[in-house]
């Protein structure tokens, strides 16, 4: 294990030496130092920004899931209400059919119904008969008048 590490170290030193042969070690170190120049408070500020962004992201997720839960609850409620109303309306239809049993209707009501309908029927029939009679009378007059004109000719 130790030998392997030493081998790796040598390999790293060799690799570094290749770069340092082109640009000096100092130049490469200077490059690195330049990249690392930040204000002393930078990493604290960055840390605060990251945690703030994560907090905002979490809040968004919570708000979204809250709305989502409400939407799901509303949809479920709508489904339950629709089903309940549908069942109720179908029950009412069946109930109407059940209640219209002729045995249960009082005979007085039946008589009233028949009488009133007979009256309507009578009124209808008499008006029809009167109309027909009028028409018949008119046609009769026409025939008589035609006969008179033919005689005159």
């Amino acid at each position, binding site marked *: 294990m130790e030998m392997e590490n030493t081998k790796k170290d040598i390999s790293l030193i060799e690799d570094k030496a290749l770069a340092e042969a*082109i640009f000096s070690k100092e*130049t490469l170190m200077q490059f690195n130092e*330049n*990249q690392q120049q930040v204000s002393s408070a930078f990493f604290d500020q960055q840390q605060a920004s*990251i945690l703030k962004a*994560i907090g905002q992201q979490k809040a968004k997720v919570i708000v979204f899931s809250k709305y989502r839960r409400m939407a799901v609850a509303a949809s479920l409620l709508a489904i339950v209400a629709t089903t309940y109303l549908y069942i109720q309306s179908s029950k009412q239809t069946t109930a109407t059919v059940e209640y219209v049993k002729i045995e249960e209707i009082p005979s007085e009501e039946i008589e009233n119904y028949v009488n009133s309908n007979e009256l309507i029927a009578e009124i209808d029939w008499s008006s029809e008969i009167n109309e027909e009679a009028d028409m018949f009378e008119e046609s009769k007059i026409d025939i008589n008048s035609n006969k008179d004109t033919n005689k005159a000719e």
Partner: protein
Amino acid sequence: MQNDQTLVMEFQQSTQKEGPFTQLLKRHQQRVYYQIKRMLNNHMDADDVAQQVWIKVWNKLDGFKMESEFSTWLFRIAYNETLNFIQKQQKQAGFNETAEKIDYEEAATGSDHPKSTQIQIALDRAVKQLPEKQRFVFMLRYFEALNYEKIASITGTTVGGAKANYHQAIKKMEEILKQD
């Protein structure tokens, strides 16, 4: 002091995730930022990308199966985020040689680099002209002193591929320096 693995397990099992996450953040924050800064050579961009990396770590850490070390996984996220950022930037601006040249000068003489000499400007320029993967491998090997197994795992290549990337980077920088 808890090691990374214990902190990751604590994060995954606990509902109070901020504690172990903050410890992991404090432990690796600087190395992640420096690696990204060496790649992008711009403080603001490096800060943005580093923050994105840590937000991604927060979101994905529950699914981390610990098949590799936490730091390897972390640097892989940093590598992907950095490449995504570079690609987006190239798409937005369009790859312009003149703009790149101005950028080198600004980078070398700007406030971030107060003591730039000719050779340092040349190094900045050479580093920036390297393909992203070679640049990332070079930084990890030379400045982070990572072994090739780890570098290969971070960049999604083989050990041989990682070694080749390092040596190609050296060769290319040498060529660029000769051209100057």
